[in-house]
């Protein structure tokens, strides 16, 4: 059994999701090769080579791969697929974009957002926003899966795998990269943050969302998250969204301020180690999952919390 893991990286550095997905890939029980598909991505490849458990690091480079264009990435993986029994990628926005293409081109039904490897052909995955966990057995001879990284511990960085170049596969030029608008901040990424403070509709405006949450996030070194209601209301951009339709997170500390706790939000954060809820409605469902709840007006409580930290 041999597995190909497609790394998540930005060419200059490896994303934390790769080390977590490697743990999942190793649980399948075979050798795991890691593909770094990018452009000028030697730094990311060297980081990957250090991951404990990686057999070898394969590097493929082209302009389209450098921007993680789905058509190019899927063509690359399909060209290499013959040698592998399983193909794994983290369920990030890149992984979700290209992996179903790989599955379709190989005539395989993909396993999405796997949360547990039961055996080499049986997996757990969440459906209905995490409210129904399915155990599924795949009849496909090759397994193609994305894994939910919040459910796997990161592999250590004590290895020294060899790095080899592989040819970039021919890919259709249907999609051309134009530009990227990345939110620039020193904050940790939502997916890997140790602490998250998230705001909901209770913040009532974009100004208050930023004005009240930012100072606390600064003091905690936390990422800022938002409920779908806050995103819909325009208080926060969509990439901060935590929930079924946003990101699934599992930090050590999750503070939910002005979030009622809709099913779809809970699906995205209920695996956090410690949950704190601040809400003026003591019946809010968020209190049913919170370790510590505080009932009251967040416009008083948040500034007080900031001072107390």
């Amino acid at each position, binding site marked *: 059994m041999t597995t190909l893991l497609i790394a998540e990286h930005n060419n200059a550095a490896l994303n934390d999701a790769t080390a977590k997905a490697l743990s999942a890939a190793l649980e399948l029980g075979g050798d795991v090769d890691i593909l770094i598909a990018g452009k000028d991505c030697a730094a990311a490849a060297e980081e990957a080579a250090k991951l404990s458990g990686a057999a070898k690091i394969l590097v493929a480079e082209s302009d389209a791969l450098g921007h993680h*264009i*789905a058509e190019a990435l899927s063509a690359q993986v399909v060209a290499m697929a013959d040698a592998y029994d399983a193909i794994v990628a983290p369920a990030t926005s*890149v992984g*979700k*974009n*290209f*992996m*179903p*293409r*790989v*599955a*379709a*081109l190989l005539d*395989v*039904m*993909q*396993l*999405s957002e796997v949360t547990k490897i039961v055996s080499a052909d049986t997996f757990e995955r*969440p*459906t*209905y*926003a995490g409210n*129904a*966990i*399915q*155990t*599924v*057995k795949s009849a*496909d001879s090759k397994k193609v899966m994305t894994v939910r990284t919040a459910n796997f511990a990161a592999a250590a960085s004590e290895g020294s795998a060899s790095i080899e170049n592989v040819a970039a596969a021919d890919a*259709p*030029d*249907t*999609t051309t*990269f*134009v*530009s*990227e*608008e*990345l939110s620039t901040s020193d904050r940790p990424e939502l997916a890997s943050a140790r602490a998250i403070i998230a705001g909901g509709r209770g913040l009532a405006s974009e100004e208050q969302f930023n004005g009240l949450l930012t100072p606390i996030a600064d003091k905690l070194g936390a990422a800022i998250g938002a409920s779908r209601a806050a995103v819909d209301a325009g208080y926060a951009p*969509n*990439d901060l*969204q935590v929930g079924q*339709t946003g990101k699934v997170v599992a930090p050590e*500390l999750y503070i939910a301020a002005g979030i009622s706790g809709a099913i779809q939000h809970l699906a995205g954060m209920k695996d956090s*180690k*410690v*949950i*704190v809820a601040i809400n003026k409605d*003591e019946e809010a469902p968020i*209190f049913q*999952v*919170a*370790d*510590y*709840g*505080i*009932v009251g007006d967040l416009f008083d409580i948040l500034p*007080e*919390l900031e001072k*107390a930290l």
Partner: protein
Amino acid sequence: MKILVPVKRVVDYNVKIRVKADGTGVDLANVKMSMNPFDEIAVEEAVRLKEAGVASEIVVVSIGVQQAQETLRTGLAMGADRAILIKSDAPVEPLGVAKLLKAVVEEEQPGMVIVGKQAIDDDANQTGQMLSALLGWGQGAFASGIKVEGDVASVTREIDGGLQNVTIKLPAVMTADLRLNEPRYASLPNIMKAKKKPLDTKEAADYGVDIAPRLEVLSTAEPEARKAGIKVESVAELVDKLKNEASVL
């Protein structure tokens, strides 16, 4: 340009689902069903492209049980021109759905397919990408903006950490993300009009593609419930608990 919009009938997003005690699945008896919310966004985008003079005809298609025609009527009431129901009493996995849609695309020859990025029942997030790959078309997944200029679309995509702008040659498959638009409610006159719009019914078996399931669902379980904790009276007490009891500060 013709636009094809696949839509799925799913449990309404406001319903709290119940997992059957014997582990055989989710109880769907007497549960309110609606159009998958992301598919509503896809229909809305197609209607806006028609209103802007870019699209000439909108065809909605659904694969599922007979009642999925209600979902198609919703799409027609929102502004689609005609509907195709591909009947299958057994659930069809995303790979099978993509193969059926490919056959529909070959018949209908649309210039664009817009589909919701994910269905809120199986949460697979696969169909649009699989269809794009099977057709060899361009792919604009997780779109939050679509602008058509001649035979190219400029698409803004939601990615981790921000947005990506790409140009995609048409024909192409787009998948709709949350912020693409806010779907309209169908007005009563439009709901009445939708009843008269054409709806073709076909059988999945007629397409001659392999839609046999590849995944066997061994069991379905509720997630482990999280226990409610305690309420604290003050911020000072909260900070104290976080420091000394939970050790996360």
